[in-house]
């Protein structure tokens, strides 16, 4: 018999949609309520004045896993991974370095580095694949572990020992807790190359290359590379989101936009539904939150429904956004010195060295904006001209190491930062400033206001070691179920964390179904 429980999923971000669809396909009657007027949250698109469109937040991504595509039939709804993009480390003298999934090349690159890179990447992809086994399922319960989980873990242990082999396993155990700074310095000499790899380890996190645990964050990110090459969002996004929405509707999910949830209804300790901002109450036996866990517990549930220590721990979850987003509407194609037009579709990065990155991170620690921030640049309109008027372009820039709570507040300083970033860009793309028609800078605070991510943190909580696996978002809610019966989590704030992976949503749905059949 099919289960007709009414389940409410809060938030139509990509994880919310994945979870809602999986539940509906399992026979549940699912309602997905979204505060915004479009589905997709941080993965959606954003409209600038004058008919320019830009990726809201995520502007580069790896393909979602084959399993997810199969389970939700995404390909049937037109999902296709976007064209592969390389990472180009920009150099002021135009001596750019190109990092691809297969190799690295560029003027002045030492032969030793060029040969070491592919092997190094392969080695860490193997580590990522092993970690990935942990990402595809709920984190283990250390005690009271059912036999199946014990077996799974044991299997993983054997993979470590035999899959990798003794030497590689030793190395894995050594580097797993290290910082990316030391690992890269041991292997490579080229600053651009080291910075290019370190970028993926720290982007979106309040960490510098020297922060212990950055190897783990990098592996978490590399896990996506197992699904296929990186691509600039414009391509992927325009197929991923529509596909997710259609898959949801196809599975019978009712999607309700412009419906902001005021609070989660709690009756005798159990989730009983949600109350919308307009006062409307929707009853349901099952509530799944795709909202930041901190927001979910502190505001939607409320401390009075939680154990005091648990409520306290929720306030201790770390995760302050450190990335601002600059959108530029351009009246023509930007020209980066030393870069051919055909290379404009790649991910362009301003981060000359790991030291530069560490310095930028230093100032963010004290609520200051770095003199020289780290920049991740894409030109989505290069892939998809329809994003801008004819011959016009849009540029999307992630500005890293920007504090969420700036000393003295953002009022008035937003423009100063925008100008600083634009002039920094100008050093690499001389004609840029003259092309700017319109610009928009989203500080982490703006991101919080627009997308509800607490403190504007991409991943709904820092991806640090002490907030991973059975500690994500915190003990007592790390297996997608919460102390409140009938309330589950499915956001990036849960294991295995952020990125356009859909994994938290997928794992959450499986957990919910498992709990229904065997509570």
């Amino acid at each position, binding site marked *: 018999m099919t289960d007709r429980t009414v389940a409410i999923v809060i938030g139509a971000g990509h994880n919310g949609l994945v979870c809602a669809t999986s539940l509906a396909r399992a026979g549940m009657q699912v309602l997905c309520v979204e505060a915004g007027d479009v589905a997709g949250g941080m993965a959606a698109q954003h409209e600038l004045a004058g008919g320019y469109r830009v990726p809201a937040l995520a502007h580069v991504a790896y393909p979602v896993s084959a399993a997810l595509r199969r389970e939700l039939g995404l390909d049937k709804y037109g999902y296709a991974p976007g064209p592969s993009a390389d990472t180009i480390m920009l150099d002021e003298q135009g001596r750019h370095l190109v990092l691809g999934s297969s190799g690295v090349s560029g003027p002045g690159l030492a032969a030793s580095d060029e040969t070491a890179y592919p092997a190094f990447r392969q080695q860490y992809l193997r580590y990522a694949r092993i970690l990935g086994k942990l990402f595809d399922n709920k984190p283990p319960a250390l005690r009271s572990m059912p036999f199946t989980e014990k077996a799974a873990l044991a299997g993983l242990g054997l993979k470590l020992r035999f899959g990798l082999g*003794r030497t590689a396993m*030793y190395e894995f*155990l050594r580097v797993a807790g*290290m910082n990316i700074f030391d690992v890269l310095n041991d292997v490579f000499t080229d600053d651009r190359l080291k910075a290019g790899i370190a970028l993926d380890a720290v982007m979106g996190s309040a960490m510098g290359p*020297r922060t*212990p*645990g950055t190897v783990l964050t990098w592996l978490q990110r590399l896990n996506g590379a197992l699904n296929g090459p990186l691509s600039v969002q414009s391509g992927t996004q325009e197929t991923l989101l529509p596909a997710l929405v259609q898959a949801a509707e196809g599975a019978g999910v009712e999607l309700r936009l412009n419906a902001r949830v005021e609070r989660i209804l709690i009756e005798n300790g159990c989730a009983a539904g949600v109350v919308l901002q307009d006062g409307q109450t929707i009853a349901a036996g099952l509530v799944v939150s795709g909202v930041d866990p901190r927001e979910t517990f502190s505001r939607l549930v409320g401390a009075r429904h939680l154990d005091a220590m648990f409520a306290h721990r929720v306030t*201790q979850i770390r995760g302050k956004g450190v990335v601002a987003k600059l959108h530029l509407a351009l009246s023509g194609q930007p020209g980066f010195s030393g870069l051919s037009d055909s290379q404009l579709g790649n991910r362009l990065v301003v981060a000359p060295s790991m030291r530069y990155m560490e310095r930028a991170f230093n100032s963010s620690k004290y609520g200051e904006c770095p003199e020289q921030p780290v920049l991740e640049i894409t030109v989505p309109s290069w892939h998809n001209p329809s994003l801008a008027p004819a011959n016009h372009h849009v540029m999307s820039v992630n500005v890293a190491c920007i504090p969420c709570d700036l000393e003295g507040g953002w009022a008035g300083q937003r423009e100063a930062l925008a100008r600083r970033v634009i002039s920094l860009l100008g050093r690499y793309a001389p004609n840029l400033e003259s092309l700017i028609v319109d610009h928009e800078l989203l500080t982490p605070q703006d991101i919080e206001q627009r997308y509800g991510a607490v403190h504007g943190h991409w991943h709904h909580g820092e991806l640090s070691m*002490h907030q991973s696996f059975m500690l994500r978002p915190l*003990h007592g809610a790390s297996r997608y179920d919460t102390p409140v019966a009938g309330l589950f989590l499915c956001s990036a704030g849960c294991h295995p964390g952020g990125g356009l992976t859909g994994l938290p949503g997928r794992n959450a749905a499986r957990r919910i179904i498992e709990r229904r059949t065997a509570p």
Partner: protein
Amino acid sequence: MQDYDAVIIGAGHNGLTNAAFLARAGLRVLVVEKNDYIGGATVSRELHPGWKYSNCSYVCSLFRPEIYNALDLGRHGLQVIPLVSSMTFKQDGDFFGSYQNPHIRRRELMRHSPRDADAAVRFDTDVMRWCRLIRSMLLRTPPDPGSFRPRDALEFAYLLKKFHELSEKQLCEFIRFFTMPIAEYLENYFGNETILAHYSGGSIIGTGLGVYSPGTAYVLLHHAMGEVDGNIGAWGFARGGMGSVSRALASSFRAAGGEVRTGAEVMRIRVSGNRATGVELASGEIIRAGIVVSNLDARRTFTRIMDEQDVPPHLLRAATQFKIRGSSGKLNIALDSMPSFPALPDGSPLTLGHMHFTDTLTRLERAYDDWKEDRWSADPYCDTLIPSQYDPTLAPPGKHMMTVFVQYCPVEPEGGWTDEKRDRFGQTVINQIGEYSPDFRDLVRHVEIRTPRELENEVGLTEGNIFQGELTFDQLLFNRPFPGYAQYRGPVRGMYLCGSSTHPGGGVMGAPGANAAREILRDLHKPDTTPAEFSDD
């Protein structure tokens, strides 16, 4: 024919501990030391007439009581005076004191934050739980995750059993504790800036990490798990300076028939047929022994005193990649009289303990940022003590000896160390103390300033790192010093490591020396003379 059964390179506290246990098993043991004095970094020397400086390690706490008892160090003259307090001066003229007396401590916490006073109870119990857990692993050889020998399986089983005594919640708490930055860990309990700064200080001592670096919470534990007379977490002074620790060890070693030779620097470990056969001294003299034990740090041992062909390439790489990261400096100061600290009430006992001058986490973190840029901290974290207050043997009557441990100090500042730079470094420290003690500068009669350069050249601590290698996840337990070499054995038969770069790591603890001795005796099929894991509960 052999001159000795075993020769130990370096008369540091671990070398002597190791030697003493071997001698007690009936081996003919020789300890060779490059300096003219023994002790390595556990030393006291009269570098200014009338004053005795413990010029490297300066407090005694981590030293394992099991070893103290097994080697009968009390009878050999080691006397530890408990250290009763620690404190932090605030910039606004106030101070925070942490007393041993629980009632006074609570009252002081209340004065700064009633909420934190309550949290302190929770904090103490939690930290104590982890101390007890870790303590039971100190005097054991870590298992090798790559091997299938029964002993390793059993050791893993032992560890599993230990963790099995914890609840699901406690397990998660432990993992969290192990991987957290000290600042964030403390913020789970405390809210007061000064209290946070005061308790995080211990977590950065000796490491190239900041208070916001993951993994530093464990370092706190590493400093907190010490004991004096069975009081876990208590600190103490060795009467007569740290030198008396090594003197007592040496005397216990000699009583067991061992020999020590100073002024004898080892140039290389001799190997033939994949077996250690002895050592060659700088004098060219060759000492033959079937067992060679190095008290030097792992990198020094494998890259400096072993021939390249005796060390497998992967081990050589591991040794050069071993993270040492010197980050500390030290000042030893002869004072004409006791300096005054106006912030403290008259006769306050707080001058008897640790004195710190850094009262916010931000100041601590900025000190770390300086170090990352290869500069010494402009506003350093100083662990200051005046032991002459209750150990009259350290200075002439009425005069005093002050020891200042300084975090952070770079291994190699821009353009390398010069004496002029060293003195400027010392001056920043003296100025900081001067801000809290107006008469301090005038009382200074002699200063010994030690940067990583001095620590490396005199004591042989590579990069001047007090732990002989960072205490980070990648270099703890079965990863210390390198995966696959965590059981004290070197690459050739008969060759061993016994220094702090082996499990359980740095601090004047003696555990690495004892553990190495256990492994050696095991290989020789001799009775084990080392103490078993200690338990008072």
